[in-house]
């Protein structure tokens, strides 16, 4: 461990704002990139399910 | 590979080569404009335009930093090993500013050949190391060995 206390870890030697914004935004972008295809897939399958049900009723 | 595909492949590679050569020619023609800064040697040789704002880059010479006692004013010399340029600046210097550090200053050269800067940026090299290691290196006098990255100023 490079830091002696949790407060030191958050402060990052007065570069905390820079380090944490970088990591925060980057992590958010990564999560977004992972979530978008998952959501798109779910939406597509729901549409397909509705379409199949309609076809069966005919 | 059948001949049709081979032909398509060659056409594409030829286009790519053409674009590559065109870009290479354009970039070499613009060589001087793409450089972010002039080295002290270039300024001494009169390559830098006079009377306009230019950027000068080099290493801050050891022992050349003089701070004004009553203001934020500071003057120092930058060197590329061959020539030096004196820089005057009013304002807060970046954290990394120190003697021996690479810097880039933006400003105008006045009649005395002094660059009056309104912006000073610190340039660091590609070497990273923990503080303990750098202290140990300083002590054993091996630091110079690790400063190869700064040779680019000494053209």
């Amino acid at each position, binding site marked *: 461990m490079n830091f002696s206390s949790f407060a030191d870890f958050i402060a990052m030697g007065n570069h905390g704002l820079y380090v944490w914004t970088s990591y925060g935004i980057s992590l958010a972008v990564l999560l977004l*990139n992972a979530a978008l295809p998952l959501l798109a897939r779910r939406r597509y399958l729901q549409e397909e399910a509705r379409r199949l049900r309609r076809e069966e009723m005919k | 590979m059948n001949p049709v595909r081979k032909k398509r*492949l060659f056409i594409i590679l030829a286009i790519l080569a053409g674009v590559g050569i065109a870009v290479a020619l354009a970039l070499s023609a613009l060589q001087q404009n793409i450089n972010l800064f*002039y080295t002290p040697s270039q300024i001494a040789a009169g390559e830098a335009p006079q009377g306009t704002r230019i950027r000068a880059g080099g290493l801050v010479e050891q022992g050349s930093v003089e701070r004004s006692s009553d203001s934020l004013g500071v003057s120092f010399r930058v060197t590329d090993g061959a020539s030096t340029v004196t820089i005057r600046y009013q304002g807060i210097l970046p954290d990394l500013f120190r003697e021996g550090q690479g810097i880039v200053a933006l400003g105008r050269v006045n009649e005395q050949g002094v660059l009056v800067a309104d912006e000073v940026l610190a340039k660091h090299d590609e070497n*990273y*190391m923990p503080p303990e290691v750098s202290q140990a290196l300083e002590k054993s006098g091996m630091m110079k060995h690790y400063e190869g990255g700064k040779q680019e100023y000494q053209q």
Partner: protein
Amino acid sequence: MNWTWFHKLGSPKWFYEISGRWLPWLAWAALLLIAVGTVWGLAFAPQDYQQGNSFRIIYIHVPAAFLAQSIYVMLAVAGLVGLVWKMKLADVALQQAAPIGAWMTFIALLTGAVWGKPTWGAWWVWDARLTSMLILLFLYFGVIALGQAISNRDSAAKACAVLSIVGVVNIPIIKYSVEWWNTLHQPATFKVTEKPAMPVEMWLPLLVMVIGFYCFFAAVLLMRMRLEVLRREARSSWVKSEIRTLVGKDA
């Protein structure tokens, strides 16, 4: 030379089956490596003797910048394969990789700006490295826009492939910009031929992060490509039966 494996690669059905097997491994590897790399880089790696803790931004900046350039090279290769061999899957890969590449370029530029402020003293400088990286972002935007603007699938694929191949000229410019011109950006810390210009306790977490980012890209790309294959091949019988089983599971 035997090209059957190459043509097999072009079969959407074969791709869908094999990628389904790889996807969980890649996803877990990405999650694990990025988690380990982040904690290691943030808390355990030593600080830099000059930059202090702001140096830790390197653990995102460098992997994102590597990936931004690698993905563009991949677009160009996919474009070449699509144009020469008329492989449909190449266009799927190109279209689906471009947005990820744009996001990675965005991360590299953003973390670079946030890192530049405390170290250089400026958010942005128009030096050759930063400018060529910004051009890369616009090239990605161009590929994405072109793919969406042209409604005919084949023409869109051709246009995007040509733009990707021509734009690849920018990649060596990004890489060598720091050597060809005077830039504020420092030269590369990692070179293939030399040992890295940092001690092992600093570069090992970086290596973990780089591999993690590559796994992340592979996993997200496969997810996107699989959905696109289902959409484009919706009329084929294997997709119809696949959708029926998937829908059955979800309902």
